[in-house]
């Protein structure tokens, strides 16, 4: 168990290093001069040179990279090229907002998908299962931002039950916060649920065919009992993988949803930085998102070890 855990941590660290190199290389090596990009073509050469010096862009790339990583590790990534304000607090602020959105969306997706998918698997030969199956197929085809627009059209513009957009921190006004959270979280969650349902279905279908489920029934458990006690934990392994992978999709989906609902999250920060040509900010936000994805993948691996005792064995 410990060996496995150490192994996974090593993989996580290696992945973090490699992806940071990718992000850095991409942003620093390819595009030419970030200072020039930040200041625009019309800027004078002296101004550009000054900015380069200020941000250490004139130093060797290795040094630049190490400085950048040091900034990330110490949670002090320095200042933005454009606004000259510290990047750290901004990212932390925005990250909070996005996390609310993503976590709520994911929880909603699970609440919808796990029972639905299980039902679809158990009834996979009956009309009810097939109808649910078809519905999920349609759900998968609807992009989250389209779901968002539709939800706004119906519940905000049409019925006027909920605000069409905006964001209020929970500490400031919990009720308004919840009201504004519902529609964006639903847009993310519903689409996610459609996808997840299909994976839950196929995982449960696989488990339903397992011999140990027949053993459980031979013991005198009813089919539902057997599925709940012996099936779900085993079906969880593939579902958790998908959950992990989809958290990445959800994070990126949040970028678009934030745009639809005018929410000041990480996605809005990223998009604004791109349009402001604030490359260091873009680099940091992209790295944060990549880090989040890798961290989730690591957690998925750890959850495996908890769910499936077979994987705890040291040797492969």
């Amino acid at each position, binding site marked *: 168990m410990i060996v496995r855990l150490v192994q996974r941590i090593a*993989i996580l660290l290696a*992945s973090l290093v*490699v*992806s940071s190199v*990718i*992000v850095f290389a*991409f*942003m620093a090596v*390819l*595009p030419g001069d970030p200072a020039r990009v930040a200041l625009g073509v019309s800027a004078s050469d002296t101004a550009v040179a000054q900015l380069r010096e200020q941000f250490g862009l004139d130093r060797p790339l290795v040094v630049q990279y190490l400085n950048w990583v040091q900034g990330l590790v110490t949670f002090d990534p320095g200042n933005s090229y454009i606004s000259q304000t510290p990047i750290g607090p901004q990212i932390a602020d925005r990250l909070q907002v996005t996390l609310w959105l993503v976590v709520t969306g994911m929880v909603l997706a699970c609440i919808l998908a796990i029972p639905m998918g299980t039902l679809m698997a158990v009834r*996979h*030969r009956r009309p009810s299962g*097939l109808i649910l*199956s*078809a519905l999920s*197929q*349609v759900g*998968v*085809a*609807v*992009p989250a*931002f*389209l779901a968002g*627009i*539709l939800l*706004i*059209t119906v519940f905000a*513009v049409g019925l006027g039950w909920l605000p*069409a957009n905006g964001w209020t921190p929970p500490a400031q006004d919990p009720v308004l916060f919840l009201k504004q959270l519902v529609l964006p979280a639903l847009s993310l969650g519903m689409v996610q649920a459609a996808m997840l349902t*299909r994976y839950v*279905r*196929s995982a449960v*279908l*696989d488990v339903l065919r397992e*011999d140990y489920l*027949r053993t459980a029934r031979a013991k005198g458990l009813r089919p539902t009992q057997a599925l709940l006690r012996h099936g779900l934990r085993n079906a969880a392994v593939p579902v958790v993988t998908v959950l992990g*992978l989809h958290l*990445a*999709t959800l*994070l*990126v989906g949040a*970028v*678009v949803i934030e*745009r*639809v609902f005018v929410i000041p999250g990480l996605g809005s920060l*990223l*998009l604004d*930085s*791109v349009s402001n*040509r604030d*490359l260091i900010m*873009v680099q940091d936000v*992209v790295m944060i*998102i*990549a880090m989040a*994805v*890798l961290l989730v*993948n690591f957690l998925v691996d750890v959850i495996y070890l908890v769910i499936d005792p077979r994987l705890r064995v040291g040797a492969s």
Partner: protein
Amino acid sequence: MSALDTEAAVASAVPDGRRRRRPMAGSLLVGGLIVSVVLGMALLSFVWTPHDPTLVNPSARLEKPSLEYWFGTDKFGRDVFSQLLMGSRTTLFVGFVAVGVAALVGVPLGIVAGMAPRWFGELLMRGNDLLLAFPALLLAIMFAAVYGAGTLVAMVAIGIASIPNFARLIRGGTLQVMKTEYVIAARAAGRGPFAIGLRHVLPNVSSLVIVQASVGFAIAVLAEAALSFLGFGTPPPTPSWGRMLQESQEMLSSAPRLAVFPGIAIAVAVLGFNLLGDGLRDRFDPKLEDRR
């Protein structure tokens, strides 16, 4: 005899076709039909559109659907139906290039990773997994930040982000093919890895490639729509379903239909490619019939 034998007995006792479930055969049909319609729209747009889709006409702003303007006009007076027709071209173009990039890199990568020594294959797959940390949208935004937004940037970004899907699937298929007796026989006969890869592995994983291409197309359509919606995709004036949606957002209260038409177009196209992929999967591998 146990579960296995029993199932074999059941399978052999049932006439062919009885066991194949209708909805699965249907998914191939419906998916193929939808994809053909999208393809037809794109082809049609080369020879005919009811109006010039990019023509701004201030005197015909926000027209309701009519005989003249089948789906109405947008806030600039452009014909929505014509834009949809032209938009299908963008969608298909982006899909083709993105899937092409992904398959061109992902398939050889998967085959090499499946044929190489185990440790090297694992290493390649670890690197491959790393790409998963950069979803299409994120890559496209990164690219756009550096090179500026554009169709090419979007296509390449979506393509690169789709590589891991191909590579992983093809590696799995390759590992299976490598265990078959004809490959072992070919290796025993002294055939080089290149010949085996080309002659035995590639033809046998080609059905996987086709299925993944269809599913990848759906992903590409979704990603293109999202990128255009954010303004990182196809630049105006070239019509794009995603941008039509974005432009409709400020008119939601007065003209929700402007969101509905491109929305339906995107959803139906994605549905079509997904169904086609599912149907092809079942066609190629009936053992998987009940899944997904």
